[in-house]
């Protein structure tokens, strides 16, 4: 029969159209909210989703996975006295590995001796050149540079970030990437423990190696 294929196709669209309402009613009967709730958004972006699929940005936002990467930021630790302690040692690995070369680091020198000290005086990232590849965070040996989750960067000018804008506390890092933070902390502790063990006794040669 001519037209059978079209009818078959239309049955698909028809089914998908009603699926939205079937889902809505079933959520209603279970007393749950399908829209503007985290549960609803999670369900709509899972493989069990049926019917309407879209998320109403900006009122709703997709749940970002932990590994999601957007422009980088610098991490500082807060000492108990409230002092900011930068993790960056201006070793330059991030600037060297950066594919579009958007990181500029000015090293600090000790004013008395003139020798370089492990801290940057200035640190610039040109966010308009940054390609969000994540190499800087991946290869930083001190976990001092981390990829952010904040992707709403629209501005009227150039987004050249200096140290003021780049530095964010370690607690922020913990809030956006809890698993990575835990892993890094564990590694750091293991490394420090190994160092301490090594320093404590040259007599005990087999210090536990830091595992990664």
């Amino acid at each position, binding site marked *: 029969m001519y037209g059978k294929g079209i009818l078959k196709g239309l049955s698909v669209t028809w089914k998908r159209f009603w699926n939205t309402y079937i889902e809505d009613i079933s959520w209603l009967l279970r007393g749950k909210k399908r829209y503007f709730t985290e549960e609803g958004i999670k369900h709509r972006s899972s493989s069990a989703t049926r019917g309407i699929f879209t998320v109403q940005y900006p009122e709703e936002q997709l749940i970002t996975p932990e590994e999601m990467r957007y422009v980088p930021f610098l991490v500082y630790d807060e000492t108990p006295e409230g002092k900011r302690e930068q993790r960056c040692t201006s070793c330059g690995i991030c600037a060297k590995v950066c594919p579009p070369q958007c990181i500029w680091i000015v090293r600090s020198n000790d004013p008395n001796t003139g020798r370089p000290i492990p801290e940057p005086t200035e640190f610039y990232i040109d966010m308009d050149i940054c390609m969000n*590849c994540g190499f800087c965070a991946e290869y930083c040996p001190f976990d001092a540079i981390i990829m952010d989750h904040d992707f709403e960067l629209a501005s009227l000018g150039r987004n050249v970030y200096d140290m003021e804008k780049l530095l964010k506390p370690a607690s922020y890092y913990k809030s956006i990437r809890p698993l990575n933070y835990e892993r890094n902390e564990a590694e750091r502790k293991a490394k420090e423990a190994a160092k301490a063990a090594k320093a404590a006794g040259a007599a005990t040669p087999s210090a536990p190696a830091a595992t990664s």
Partner: protein
Amino acid sequence: MATTLPQTETTQAATVDLGARFPGIVTADNRPAYKGWIIPKENLIEVATVIHDELGYDLLSNLAGVDYFPENIMEVVYHAYKTTGGPGLEFKVQVPREDPVEVPSLIGVWPGVDFQEREAWDLLGIRFTGHPDLRRILMWEGYEGHPLRKDWKEPFYEEDFKPFKSRWPDGQFHMAEEKNPYKDNLKFPGGFDPEKWIPEGEALLYGSLARYTVKNEEGLNTDQIVLNFGPQHPSTHGVFRAAITLEGETIAGLKPVIGYLHRNHEKIGERNTYIQNMPFTDRLDYFNSMANNFSYALAVEKLMNIPVAERAEYIRVIMAELSRVQNHLIFIGNLLNDMGAMYTPALYAFEERELILDIFEAVSGARMMCNYFRFGGVVRDVPDDVMQKIKDLVFDRLQAKTDEMDRLLSENEVLVSRSKGVHVIDAETAIQYSVTGPVLRATGIPYDIRRADPYSIYDRFEFDVCTRSNGDLYDNYLIRLDEIRQSLRILEQALKQIPQGPINSQKPAYQVRVPAGAAYGRSESPKGELGFYVISNGKPNPWRYHVRAPSFVNITPLEKMCIGNKIADFVLLFGVLDVVMGELDR
């Protein structure tokens, strides 16, 4: 830990001994870690004819020019393959690097070298004698210099190789636009006045189109008209232009004009270090960044001669196949958009794509620009919850959704009558013109690199190489559905077999040591053969980084495909090649 080594020994053993076939003429390339045969340019056509006719290498897949600057040598490297499978044959021609650099054109042996020779002329200034239409292809006619030559420098030139010294240790922030202010950031050749410039390229372009006056049946003089299709056109999937001569509604001649999105990816790649190229490959075919990463990693791993961690091999295959599924779904959606079935199939396809991109985001951090592969493995392991998500998707959802797409479209009378019998390309022409991927398989040639020249761990999986026999539009649509089903089969096996273990055989290093040599790594990307030809001289940056992009090579027979068809079908004939501009223009 079981590992798979790159198969360098087997390929070397199985290649033919051209030196014995042509004693005194063809010599083996004896540079360390180089492969292939060096042919003097006087004998090139003769030897190439033998390679094609007698030895059966019917598919010339890759042509790359190389500039050896201090040695004053220009080299053209060819990679030929058999469509029946097996390893390839690499041969090269060396000529002195003094203008005019001339190499005979192989267009008479393999017509598919057409655009690749034009590209080598454009970017390296190698003149292919005997080429009928040797115009620039990516840059515009009148452009000064050949950008890929090693002594050519770009307007924003800083240093030859990254990392640049001004970032670290002599950190000094500057903005590029401050160094080159607006209206002052252009360099013109001497004696050039933009006000008086006449675009000679256009005259050459129209001159290359056959145009004549004919008498029709009623004895009236009719004239062909030239129609410029694009560059801004909703159906060209980006900025693409085709200059078409029309005889009524029938296409009488066609020349694609490309390069609007050209950024000289290869020059950027030669400035970069090896690892820095990885995120740049994402930007080639931006629908399939995982597949692009795959090819590039294969090429560099061949050079470094390192194994890939077992678990990483499986993760790579899973990601590449997921990428193929979403690419083909989008292809079907876009093809239907081009036919006028606006958005319903396309948006249904986008739903599944969203779910696959969610997985990419969870493992790599980005939805499209994944940058996930590293030499020897992948960046990070797939977490258990994401692995469960992939399983849910593959085992429960994608199969059903593919069937749904099938139900929605395959029997639709409008689609069938619009696409059945619209001839795309026949098998012989497709091979001659180096067409690869689903378009070639839709003509009945079972050539799939996953089977023909297996890489990674594809030899462990059971799957069929899909073919269709008619090579019309409808077959090209159906073969995509077939391939999605086969990809799902591979995915199911891979997800069941994937072992635990490390995800990289190497220690993470921001600079890798790549021994000197040359390697061609290729994989079956969803659009065809994606190859990377990388030459290392032992330094941190590649000496030559060439991309054999399937989109670029696949449009070579576009004119041949379109002549005789109606102008309304051009949109579909172009759409069926599944071209992505990021890869076409590079």
